[in-house]
């Protein structure tokens, strides 16, 4: 019976998350907790993005961050990765899915790519 214990703040929060191919996904900005039927509390999902980091930081700065993120992403809720997609915990958190499978994760990245980066001519060639 494995009794591995870990502290949420030390081992999970602010850790780098990578996908199954090792690509950078983001940081663990917060954790979603759920109450199970036996009365137990379990970690339900990893939350990422300014809508998660902002409220965690709190205060006025946190509020700005949350609002900025919500406006850019056009969504109030943070990016959510359920624990069932987490393959490995360690120095990095490794997922069992691809970064492209995570809903809304690449939205801002893709928006900027299409509306800013692609508008500027030249640019090093994408090898992908």
């Amino acid at each position, binding site marked *: 019976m494995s009794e591995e214990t870990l502290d949420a703040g030390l081992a999970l929060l*602010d850790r780098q998350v990578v996908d199954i191919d090792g690509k950078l996904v983001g*940081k663990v900005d917060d954790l979603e907790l759920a109450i199970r039927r036996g009365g137990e509390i379990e970690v339900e999902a990893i939350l990422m993005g300014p809508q998660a980091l902002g409220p965690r*930081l709190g205060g006025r700065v946190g509020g700005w961050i949350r609002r900025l993120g919500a406006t850019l992403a056009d969504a109030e809720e943070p990016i959510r990765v359920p624990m069932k997609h987490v393959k490995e915990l360690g120095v990095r958190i490794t997922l069992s899915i691809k970064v492209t499978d995570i809903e809304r994760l690449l939205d801002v990245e893709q928006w900027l790519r299409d509306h800013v980066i692609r508008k500027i001519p030249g640019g090093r060639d994408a090898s992908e």
Partner: protein
Amino acid sequence: MKKILTLALGILTAIGGFMDIGDLVTDALIGARFGLNLVWVTVVAVIGITAYSEMAGRVAAVTERTVFDLVRERLGATAGLLNLSASYFVTALTLVAELCGVALAIQLATDVHYLLWVPLVAFLAFLVFWKMPFQPMERIYGVLGLSLFVFVIAIWQLDPDWGRMMHDVTHPQIPPGEGISTFAFYAIVMLGAQMTPYEVFFFSSGVVEHGWSAEKLGEIRVNNLIGYPIGGILAIGIQVAAYLVLQPRGIEVAHLSETVLPVVVAFGKLGLALAIIGIFAATFGSVLETLLSSGYTVAHHFGWRWGKFEAPVNASRFSVLVIVTLLGATAVALTAIDPIKLTIYAVYLGAATLPFTYIPILIVANDERYMGEHVNGRLANTVGTIYVFVVSAAAILALPLLIITKAGA
């Protein structure tokens, strides 16, 4: 044979890259004003940055994580974000100084006012970031930066009293007309000019991006242990040259032209040309380094995709941030802010922020969970702990000294 060549090239690039406008201005200014009495600080700073850089490089190679990635992880979201803001700000400020530095170098050569060159330099930097193959570029201006050694050679030409110089270097004292607070203020300036945080961020990012792992530790160490000290010799050379030529004439360094005067006295036009090439190359290299470093700090903190080899379309947030930072820095430079004063402020603030990135790296370097067998040994920890005191003292004294001396007046 090829390996030695690559290693040599790496070291040369490191030396050339080591110099930036902060070093140039600081060394000349302090040499002119304090003579040889602050050379010991350069020695202290070189040991410090060698140790810090080795640690950050080792941590990056073993953990595949960069400085700001780890700072957030170990300090938490709030402290990490504060740290990030301060570091980004200082690095961006340094970028402004470097932009001005390149423009000033061109002004030295062409006699056309530097402000007219600033937008061109910024555009060139954008082009390199946007399109050009980074590694060859890095090598070119790294090697060209070596022509700054004309300052060192100038010392021989100026035929100094070596015995007396050695004595002055090893017996520092507060020169007449200066107080202990200005002495301390400029000691911190000197420390900040050589122990530049952005360089460590850039180096650790490079280690991760190149995929250098534990096998490359030997090469990383050689790079550091040879590169930085030689850079230190160059820095001391500029101080000595200023001491020999500027101090006796009572010339203070308020413009870039004064920093090259010693070389002109020693070698005339040829010396000037070499100095200008060296300054241009070194500061342009630093424009790119500070620009990318400022982007890296943010990208690593938030976990975005990043990299100098990445095609911009694949790392949009990072690329947009880099462009915005460059535009902002250009705008600030164009306000005609005094570049020399700005440079002093930038290196001073850099010194003040050192503990916040240095201490977390030192702690991670001691954590077996991250480092495995590559944890700090006795030497690294002894040196490491000494420098905790050094950088903390500098940070604590920074604000009071700034006020007391009215920014070094």
